[in-house]
């Protein structure tokens, strides 16, 4: 057994899974409340990555930052999350709110339209070329060896820890706060929640804000890890985030987290162990999606929907 390879793929999978989990959370939260698949979510992730790039340039660029590297990264996170949170609220307000009572296909098409709009806006505004973040110039990237076979870098640790912290904050927000209670009530029964005095519009806007902020955080983590962003990076990441949400159980927050890590680990181990893994990793991921739909449509932690007739 090649333990070096095993632990290497484990760390890669957990790192990638952290990013997918954050994207999946946005999908699952919106679906839980509105029963809407927000296909523009992957492109919000892309916008988050670009916002972080422009913040970095404003701070002086990776070689000449006006502040310490780690502080620059913290500022990139905060600004990107805030900006994309507002973007998410705007998208909901203008593209989905009026379609809340329309047949389900209408907001779905609108979501696809928003996705294409964001992609092409990014292409128009920022051009199609890759943006280099210069992570290695910004911070001192180091690898730590634990034992003979386990190697992990400081930016991988940052990614995994940050995503776990964000997921814990989200879980506490949903389970321990009044706003979280309102979100759960709206998710359970929107009409009843409204009758109980809960501002559904406010809850929905807040959900979009949080989901989009998490997507932005995922975007920033991606570019710190892999150093580059492009306008079309959101498409595949969004699909994988959606897959993670479905695999975990769409509408279930723990399910989205589990699904994200599962997809990340599948991709990494498929690359490491399966024939043609590097080339066909996406094939294995989406094959899992199809298998999940066939065998357990409600996902790993989702519950079957009972419809009263």
């Amino acid at each position, binding site marked *: 057994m090649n333990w*070096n*390879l095993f632990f*290497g*793929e484990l*760390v*890669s*999978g957990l*790192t*990638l899974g952290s990013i997918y989990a954050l994207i999946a959370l946005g999908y699952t939260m919106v679906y839980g409340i509105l029963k809407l698949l927000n296909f523009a979510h992957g492109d919000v992730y892309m916008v988050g990555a670009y916002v972080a790039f422009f913040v970095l340039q404003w701070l002086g660029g990776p070689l000449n930052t006006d502040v310490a590297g780690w502080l620059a990264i913290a500022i990139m996170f905060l600004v990107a999350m805030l900006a994309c949170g507002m973007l998410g609220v705007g998208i909901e307000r203008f593209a989905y709110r009026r379609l809340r009572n329309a047949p389900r296909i209408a907001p779905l098409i609108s979501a696809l339209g928003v996705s294409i709009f964001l992609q092409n806006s990014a292409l128009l505004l920022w*051009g*199609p*070329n*890759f943006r*280099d973040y210069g*992570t*290695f110039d910004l911070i001192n*990237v180091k*690898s730590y*060896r634990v034992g003979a076979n386990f*190697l992990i*870098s400081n*930016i991988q640790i940052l990614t995994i820890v940050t995503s776990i912290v964000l997921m814990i904050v989200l879980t506490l927000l949903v389970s321990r706060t009044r706003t979280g209670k309102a979100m759960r009530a709206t998710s359970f029964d929107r009409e009843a929640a409204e009758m109980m005095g809960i501002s559904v519009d406010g809850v929905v806007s807040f959900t979009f804000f949080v989901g989009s902020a998490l997507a932005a955080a995922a975007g920033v983590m*991606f570019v710190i*890890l*892999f*150093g*580059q962003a*492009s306008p*079309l*990076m959101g498409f*595949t990441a969004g699909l994988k985030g959606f897959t993670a949400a479905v695999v975990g159980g769409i509408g279930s927050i723990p399910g989205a987290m589990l699904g994200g890590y599962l997809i990340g680990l599948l*991709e*990494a181990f498929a*690359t*490491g162990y399966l024939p*043609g*893994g*590097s*080339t066909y*990793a996406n094939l294995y991921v989406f094959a899992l999606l199809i298998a999940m739909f066939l065998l357990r449509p409600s996902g790993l932690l989702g519950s079957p929907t009972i419809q009263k007739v």
Partner: protein
Amino acid sequence: MKKLVVAALFAAGVAALTTAAFGSSKSPSRAASAASVSSGAVKCGSTRYIGFMAPITGPAASLGQTQVDWAKYYVRLYNKGHKKSKIKLVPEDTELGGPNGTAAAVQGAQALGSNAKVLGVVGPAGSNEVKATTGALKGAGLGFVSGSATNAAIATDGTRTGYFFRTVPTDDDQSKSASAYIVNKLKLKRVYIIDDQEAYSIGLADSVESQLKAKGLTVGRDGVSQQLSDFTSVINKIPQNTQLVYIPWQLPPKGQAFGQQMKGLGRGSVKLMGGDGLFDPAFSGVGSNVYDTFFPVNTKDKRIAGFKKLHKGQTEFFGAPTFEAVHVVSAAIDRACKDGKATRAEVRAQIKKTNIPVKTSLIGLPINFAKTGNLKKHPFGVYHSSKGVFVRVG
């Protein structure tokens, strides 16, 4: 509701029919127009038009921009030195490496084919683009000279003989130079090769793999998609005792990302070698463990100093063969235009007769073409990254 549905279906049907009628009425005449353009003689005015296909935008834009810079530089020198005739480039963006594959390149080729003023083409840049655009360019009778398409088979498969030429050695030459350097100079024993699943990369990787194995080296092999950004899982597969990773990729940002991720995973001491597609400051900036293969540019040429002056002291050589490609096509048009008019067939015939001696050639090689369209003399140089810049070492 039913009426609305019926009305909508009717409107859609009418729209479909109209589009089909319009499309069918357009396409034969467009095909006819390209065909008639290909055979007709064009009066050689004071301005001569050369089609120029390059990845101006997209993932390979950094390479395309160098080709644009060098092509424009040639045009500037030519127009300054000629009073009676001027060259003008007709650009088409091929978006090499983009999500639409070679679609943009094919559209560009069709546009150039339909443009009666265009007598010859420089480009396209990628070997897969050359394959995709051959039908359109050949159908329009246009000769096309690439400054960067290096896949060996595209000149020898017979599909575009007499139409396609290149001012750059082939991947066969490149693979020989890379393998010889790895074996004889670096004296390595364990190499890992990763291609990017494109024609150029697979061809070069296959060739280097077989040559290294023939010399008794241990060679591992893998492939990644050009769209991939996370290489950590692939890097984990590289055996710990690997001495060099060969990545003949087309996109310098990907080469840069790979090199940085290797460093991030503690594999920064492993040597990296790229092909001419990675001959870019983004890749050389990764570190002193980086090597690359590229043709032997004549760095002392005065024109290089002139280029440097125009570009604020910056110079790079990936576009130098494109400079010579424009030179080849413009000289062919001049010769074909001696009687005041020229056909595309005449320009192609003149391209075949090109004879630029090494003293005049910017790329350190004489430019004359074999029947296949390849250069008759064609060695590749090996470069090593020193302080972020590639320096020739072999």
